[in-house]
């Protein structure tokens, strides 16, 4: 790959950073909502620590889970949000009539989301550690694989949701926002998935993020995360990224074949 390959990727990124620079409201999803979540759950965990006599420290368990889940949410919304900017500005014709390829476009969405998600993660880390005493050293070196799995699954859902919006039209935008909330009951963010009904456990085991939260609880309980569990979670996440890219490309080809792309803003979709 040459520098020329990355120029269109840079264009996709640059457009979003121009928007961020020009509109302060666009910074809200980058760090404001996640910061509010950390403050809210920080106080909830502090309260729970004060009223329960179990000796359990809720800060690394609940607040840590919230932080990691918010990172996943931020990545997913980051990818879909950059895509939706093109929907809102009716930019598909200009964009896809250029030499931009689908891998370059998706890479642009992912890299942009990576930057904004890392900003959000930094804000959450600073708040959680300085205000509520959450120590990430408690999770040890497994924090790296945890973040990677969450990142990859967030990317896959972001791309998948973008493909659905492309297929179903601009009015399907609402699909992009509640996806993490739909995932959370199955992923066992706050509880072990073993307490779920069997059919929910089955779905939970297919979600890479459930291995992260199960692992998180094991570490807090003083145990270690089996490498096989991390490998399984990571493998699933990589598989979902590849499937999401394939799905987006397939939807794009369908949109080019049927005329959906050319007439996208008209919403006269089949």
């Amino acid at each position, binding site marked *: 790959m040459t520098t*020329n390959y990355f*120029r*269109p990727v*840079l*264009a996709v990124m*640059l*457009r979003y950073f*121009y*928007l961020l620079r*020009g*509109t302060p409201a666009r910074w809200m999803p980058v760090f404001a909502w996640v910061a509010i979540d950390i403050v809210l759950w920080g106080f909830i965990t502090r309260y729970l620590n004060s009223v329960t006599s179990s000796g359990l420290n809720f800060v690394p368990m609940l607040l840590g889970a919230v932080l990691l889940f918010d990172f996943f949410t931020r990545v997913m919304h980051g990818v879909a949000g950059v895509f939706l*900017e093109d929907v809102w*500005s*009716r*930019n*598909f*014709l*200009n*964009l*896809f*009539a*250029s*030499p*931009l*390829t689908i891998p370059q476009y998706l890479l642009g969405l992912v890299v942009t989301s990576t930057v904004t998600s890392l900003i959000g993660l930094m804000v959450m880390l600073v708040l959680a550690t300085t205000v509520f005493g959450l120590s990430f050293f408690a999770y040890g070196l497994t924090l790296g694989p945890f973040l990677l799995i969450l990142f990859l699954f967030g990317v896959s859902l972001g791309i998948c949701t973008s493909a659905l919006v492309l297929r179903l039209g601009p009015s399907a935008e609402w699909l992009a926002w509640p996806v993490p909330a739909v995932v959370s009951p199955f992923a066992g963010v706050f509880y072990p998935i073993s307490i779920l009904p069997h059919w929910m456990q089955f779905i939970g085991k297919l979600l890479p993020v459930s291995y992260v939260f199960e692992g998180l609880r094991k570490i807090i309980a003083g145990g270690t995360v089996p490498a096989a569990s991390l490998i399984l979670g990571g493998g699933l996440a990589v598989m979902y990224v590849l499937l999401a890219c394939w799905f987006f490309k397939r939807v794009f*080809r369908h949109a*080019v*074949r049927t*005329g959906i*792309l*050319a007439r996208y803003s008209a919403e006269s979709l089949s």
Partner: protein
Amino acid sequence: MHNVLSIRDLRKAYGDKIAVDRISFEVSRGEIVGLLGPNGAGKTTTINMILGVLQPDSGSIHVEGMELATCRAQALERTNFAAVYAPLPGNLTVQQNLCVFGLLYGVKGLSERINALIRQFDLEKFRNVRCGVLSSGEQTRVALAKAMLNQPHLLLLDEPTASLDPVAAREIRARIREFAVSGDGGVLWTTHNMVEVQVVCDRVLFLSHGRIMLEGNPKTLPDEHGQPTLEELFIAVAREPLTLERT
């Protein structure tokens, strides 16, 4: 390579409705070809297929000898377009839009190129203004500046002067004429303004019901078909396409 665009047997149907019916034509270097026809004739469908945002059912599109279906990015690097229905993102400034699209098209010496186009299209005072707040005529000039960014060898213009006042339209026509005459590029131009067609186009193609009905020099074509003006010929083609079908 003499032709910048070569189209063979291009066909597109939406269900039972045939939008473009096995059309073939070329655009040569330095030539401005007018694509004329009533609403729904298949002009925009044809342009969308040349831009790679709509897949033909059959036929081929070659840009400077490169087949669009197999060398999409390379063909589109040499192509650009401006259309009234594809405004640039209104939430970016003129400078920002040109910068983003310059990167997308891999333009070398981008800053200098943007400055030159801003001067050429008289956009200096709008450089840092968001495109969404510009008048439709100003937005057209920005869209044309974007269309010229990569010094395209094939320029597609879908009613580029539709929202311009007569003075601005004349200036734009002169610039596009200049582009075709002095550069390496060919232009495919759709418009409903028959006076404009006679001033600008070297050759016209009359499209109706997805088929090319007539082809020729816009200055001599009306006489050849017993019509007093190009506009009368246009109306005749739109009303009775079968009697005038190209052989």
